[in-house]
């Protein structure tokens, strides 16, 4: 884990101090709201429906126990005792007062946390594979490069007032756990034929009003040229991205309008003129960052744990948890443990201060001090010994953190929606809860298998609905909450955008429609097809017919 050195800590302190001054100038009237708004957004402070919302950055989804405890403390002292994890692996506090924010930032800075560039038309949090350092299928640790990008992008003087927000995702595994193809820049670490480490660089993915799957701009960029190359991309975007219409200002629009070949030509031309030696990191700095993510001191353990096997055989609940929430770890005798924040009746992605503190304790005691956040709004204990699983499970179960539903129908991504967000058209949380009520049987959920439902309360798509196997988008139809359903989206390596199911449905029809979709799938699926596979085989027609047949 990268520990902030004095320079990194000075940055946070200087930023917190700068923001304190800006808040004071706003409160005194020296600067107007128009002038202050971009400044507070660059510190992740939104004005929402009921209060200010502060979005704290969790760089590449990585948290230490100390940091989690600090977040819990902030939630208690300044908010209502909980936090909300987002689809960009950040954490939000929904009941913040402007006057407290300088103190909050000071307290977060002490543990190396901040809210830098979590909003605004700048480069946002760099997200990475939540299983980094634990999964066998990575060619390198993507966190190294996420940290490289984090530093390069922080207070970048040229790219802090882009046409629109800019999001990076980095992965190093054939499996995509980051929705990289739905990002402005998606980076996939690979070795080429000669074993040289490099990135497939993809640009122009994005959701929102006009979703796009990213295009590959470069198949293999040698890794040590990452910064100069992305600097070229950002410069072309900063100079030529549209500034006349905020709905047409993302890089995906520029790439689509130029075409990927012309866009590539412009980027390559710019890159050829950049003094790469000045921008790319020197090997010593790269080595320093890489050393922070050196392989951990795993114990040498047998691949099978008799303790765990015995407990699993005797405890069906543990067995179910193991079936759904564990993922293979590269080290024999260890497991990756997903912690679901989607308990029945809970708000998706929310964790109370007590829950955060428990996870901090478990992370400290059982996961080598390492906790992650996923873009599905769940948490991960990446390095748990199989021997310890029964104890970890028991502790999670005692705090409603052991729901055995990862990637299942009730593991729903939902944005805060109209209950909190000033931009929303409709609620998302209660839709997720209503759907959950239709699928209370864990057996049924396992029978259904992998089914990723994603709900956004508005077209800004913070719930990533475009890449949901079932996507649900809240729309405002004459003041009522209506929902547009889509099918067949995927944020994984087989990325695709969802296809519209039919006319928007009123609020009270949505959960029933999802139930009908699932029933349809179960009735036509072949073998062990997931919902997504069945949809791709049979198309939208049988689903549409089933849902709308009883529309009157």
């Amino acid at each position: 884990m990268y520990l902030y050195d004095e320079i990194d800590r000075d940055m946070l302190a200087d930023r917190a101090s700068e923001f304190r001054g800006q808040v004071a100038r706003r409160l005194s009237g020296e600067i107007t709201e128009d002038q202050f708004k971009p400044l507070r957004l660059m510190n992740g402070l939104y004005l929402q429906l009921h209060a200010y919302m502060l979005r704290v950055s969790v760089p590449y989804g990585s948290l230490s126990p100390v940091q989690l405890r600090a977040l819990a403390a902030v939630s208690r002292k300044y908010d209502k005792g909980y936090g909300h994890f987002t689809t960009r692996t950040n954490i939000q506090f929904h009941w913040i007062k402007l006057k407290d924010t300088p103190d909050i930032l000071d307290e977060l800075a002490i543990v190396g946390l901040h809210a830098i560039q979590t909003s605004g038309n700048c480069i946002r949090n760099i997200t990475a594979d939540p299983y980094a350092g634990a999964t066998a299928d990575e060619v390198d640790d993507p966190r190294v490069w996420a940290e490289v990008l984090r530093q390069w992008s922080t207070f970048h003087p040229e790219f802090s007032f882009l046409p629109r927000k800019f999001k990076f995702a980095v992965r190093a595994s054939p499996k995509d756990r980051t929705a990289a193809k739905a990002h402005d820049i998606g980076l996939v670490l690979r070795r080429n034929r000669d074993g040289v480490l490099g990135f497939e660089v993809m640009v122009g993915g994005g959701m929102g009003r006009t979703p796009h799957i990213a295009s590959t701009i470069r198949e293999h960029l040698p890794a040590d040229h990452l910064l100069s190359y992305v600097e070229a991309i950002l410069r072309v975007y900063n100079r030529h991205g549209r500034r006349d219409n905020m709905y047409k200002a993302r890089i995906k629009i520029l790439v689509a309008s130029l075409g990927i070949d012309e866009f590539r030509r412009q980027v390559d031309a710019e890159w050829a003129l950049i003094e790469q030696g000045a921008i790319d990191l020197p090997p010593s700095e790269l080595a320093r960052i890489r050393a922070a993510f050196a392989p951990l001191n795993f114990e040498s353990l047998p691949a099978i744990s008799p303790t765990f096997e015995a407990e699993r055989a005797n405890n069906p609940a543990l067995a179910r948890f193991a079936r759904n929430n564990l993922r293979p770890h590269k080290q024999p005798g260890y497991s990756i443990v997903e912690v679901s924040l989607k308990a029945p009746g809970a708000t998706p992605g929310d964790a109370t201060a007590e829950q955060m503190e428990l996870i901090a304790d478990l992370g400290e005691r059982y996961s080598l001090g390492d906790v992650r956040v996923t873009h599905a709004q769940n948490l991960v204990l990446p390095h748990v010994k199989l021997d310890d699983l029964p104890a970890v499970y028991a502790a999670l179960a005692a705090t409603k953190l052991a729901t055995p539903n990862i990637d299942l129908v009730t593991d729903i991504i939902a944005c805060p929606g109209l209950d909190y967000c000033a931009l929303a058209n409709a609620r998302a949380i209660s839709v997720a809860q209503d759907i959950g009520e239709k699928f209370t049987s864990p057996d049924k959920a396992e029978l259904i298998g992998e089914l990723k439902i994603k709900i956004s309360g508005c077209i800004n798509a913070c719930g990533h609905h475009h890449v949901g196997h079932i996507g649900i988008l809240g729309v405002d139809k004459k003041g009522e909450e209506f929902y547009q359903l889509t099918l067949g989206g995927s944020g994984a390596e087989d990325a695709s955008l969802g296809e519209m199911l039919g006319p928007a449905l009123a609020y009270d029809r949505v959960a029933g429609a999802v139930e009908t979709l699932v029933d349809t799938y179960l009735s036509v699926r072949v073998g062990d097809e997931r919902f997504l596979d069945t949809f791709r085989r049979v198309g939208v027609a049988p689903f549409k017919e089933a849902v709308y047949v009883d529309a009157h």
Partner: protein
Amino acid sequence: MSTLIKLAGGTAAWADDDFVMVGLEDSVPLSGKVILSLSRYEAEAPAILAQGRKVGVRLEGADEVEALAPFLADLSVIALEFPKFRDGRSFSSARLLRERFGYRGEIRAVGEVLRELAAFMMRCGFDAFEPTDGSTPEEWAATVHRYRHVYQRAADSRAPAFVEREA
């Protein structure tokens, strides 16, 4: 009353602005220093320069700095516009002028110019500012020095963190 702040050697001060900004429809004054818009520069600057007068150019947000490449040696000042303060194109323009084209004259921020962005502007190579928020040179200097370190290289001479760490 001066409305121009100049940065020099780490300090900021009010400066006399003896350049006249010639609007698109205006006629050029018969004497003195002038700043012409890009669209007029190529046609009208040579005659003014031939009189031994100093000439500058003003670029709008969408104007590309590459167009200035043939004229840089003659330009006393380049004014880059921020049509709204959130429009960050001129950051790229300034940086390219310094780093790619080696321009050493004055680069001035005009348009909606706020002191909260002073550090970004300075790092991108601006050394003169026409603020629209009533700010003073002292406030500009304070803002420029808010951050003890920087992470990346830009058009200024500040060593990035990775260089500091090597020391």
